[in-house]
């Protein structure tokens, strides 16, 4: 017990220290292009945390995590174009995604839906969002001064500013550091949350929902809270994505994004926060490298990798690696 707890905190502390080191040293050591690439991984890592948390530590499998990502992105795009600043829009994006998650969560959890079936509802809702936003090509779909743009999406989204410097667009290296700080902050907060009473009950829901209810906990409320937190994080990531790319299009809601998010979590390992972030890095980097080669159709390679990942590393990269290390460590110390 003691060992388990200290190990957990040690791991989280270690990850945080690495994160801070990356935050401070990357902009110094790497050139503009590499900083931009790493900013992308940071945003996606935050996105994947949203699912890693609700799935790994609340047992809620969402097939539609892209819905929150997309809502955050669109909310940020529309509000920042209208307001001419970015701090409030960032909060709006988080709020919109969180509110949508809360409403959807209420519909699902208080309707006593369960398990994968819940996954299907999240998937269908995201598909509806995708369909509808795709349909907004006409000039009548306008919010304030922001055209929704249908299939082509919203271009020219303002670049985020620091909350305390609203007049100055962030330099790429500052954006990287700002986003990295957000990522570290969310990671640490989630870790604290997981270790709290709330987190323990959330895990007990994942382990045995019925029993948790029989102990007098309002399972629906807990799930709703977890799902809403996940939605808020997804929305934040979406807003960061929008400002990073300076555009959003409906494909942000697509099945592909939801599936990618699932795959990153799966590949990294369900039930950890660190693993899925590694999963993002590994798979996105791979996809990027594949784009630079042309010896064979890239879909073939991605497909084969996915199949092998599932067949050979079913627990995910990080847990497999961790178990391997622990096993050897124990052997040496026995």
């Amino acid at each position: 017990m003691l060992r388990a707890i200290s190990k957990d905190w040690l791991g989280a502390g270690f990850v945080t220290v690495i994160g801070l080191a990356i935050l401070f040293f990357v902009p110094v050591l790497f050139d503009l292009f590499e900083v931009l690439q790493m900013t992308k991984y940071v945003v996606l890592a935050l996105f994947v945390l949203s699912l890693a948390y609700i799935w790994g530590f609340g047992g809620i499998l969402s097939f539609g995590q892209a819905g929150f990502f997309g809502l955050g992105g669109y909310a940020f795009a529309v509000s920042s174009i209208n307001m001419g600043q970015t701090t409030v829009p960032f909060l709006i994006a988080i709020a919109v995604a969180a509110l949508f998650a809360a409403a959807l969560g209420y519909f699902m959890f208080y309707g006593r839906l369960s398990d994968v079936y819940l996954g299907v509802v999240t998937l269908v809702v995201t598909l509806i969002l995708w369909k509808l936003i795709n349909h907004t090509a006409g000039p009548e779909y306008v919010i304030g001064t922001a055209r929704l743009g249908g299939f082509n999406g919203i271009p020219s989204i303002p670049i985020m500013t620091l909350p305390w410097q609203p007049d100055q667009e962030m330099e790429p290296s500052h954006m990287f550091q700002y986003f990295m700080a957000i990522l570290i902050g969310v990671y640490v907060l989630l870790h604290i949350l997981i270790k709290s009473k709330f987190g323990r009950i959330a895990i007990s829901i994942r382990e045995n929902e019925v029993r948790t209810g029989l102990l007098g906990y309002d399972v629906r409320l807990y799930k709703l809270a977890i799902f809403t937190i996940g939605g808020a994080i997804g929305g934040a990531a979406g807003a960061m994505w929008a400002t990073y790319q300076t555009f959003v299009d409906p494909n942000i809601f697509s099945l592909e994004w939801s599936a990618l998010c699932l795959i990153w979590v799966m590949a990294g390992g369900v039930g950890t926060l660190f693993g899925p972030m590694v999963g993002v890095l590994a798979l996105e980097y791979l996809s990027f490298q594949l784009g630079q080669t042309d010896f064979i159709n890239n879909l073939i390679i991605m497909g084969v990798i996915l199949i092998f990942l599932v067949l050979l590393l079913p627990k995910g990269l990080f847990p497999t690696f961790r178990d391997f290390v622990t096993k050897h460590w124990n052997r040496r110390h026995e």
Partner: protein
Amino acid sequence: MDYSLVVAIELLREVAGLILIATGLAVIFGMMRVINIAHGEFMMLGGYTVVLTTKWGVNIWVAILILAPLVVGVFGILVERLIIRHLYGRIIDSLLATWGLSLFLIGFVTVAFGNTVEGVSTPFSSFSVGRYSIAIYTLFLIFAAIAFITSVYLTLRYTKSGLIARATMQNPDMVESLGINSKLVYMATFGIGAAFAGLAGGLLAPISGVVPGMGALLIGKAFITVVTGGAAVVAGTLSASAILGSVSQAVTFATGPVFGDATLLFVALILLRLLPQGITGRIFTRSV
């Protein structure tokens, strides 16, 4: 009057289309708890089988009704042996693996056959309903779907293998204790599901574009139909196809295809909300 008849035929055609694309998925899903994301690509393979074999001189009906299901069915058995059998009871893993398979197949077909293979033209001509003319092939599709679902029903209801299949759906753990080789049942099921997908792809080949990415256009609807339908293969697919197909097509006639599709999803959502345990409860009790 003519117009109502035309609308009715189109409604039936949409329902028939859903039945065709969903049944294979439903068989695999209902019996094996495997969500085959590559189902759309299995249909694409069926389409390619028809397009390529007719090009080599094979009669189009042989290609659609025999070769497409045969080729894709054999391929399905291969996939089951190589990939799926390692993943029973792991619903999410099987989903990811079949997604990988789907990407692989799109890429592979593109490389092997190219993405611009000349299609087949639609057999039969058209007939007139008043001032409207309708492709006879539309009627053929409707009858094909009826024949298809009827034969699935009869097989499940009256044959020994149908009995085994139903027993597997009720309680997969029991089958082994009845002295039946469940591995064989699963292999056959996956093969049959794949063959259905191949047949559907073959039947749709003459009226859609046969391209490597065509599966992605079909899988979403098929998936939603199956999930809405629930555990019972025939009743589920039939009822879900009927409701979703007719409602969405009616809305399409009234407004346009955008709201038709959105309505399909929305109706599915309402159905799932109203019948949460009744429809899918049995399938998912053991999952995740």
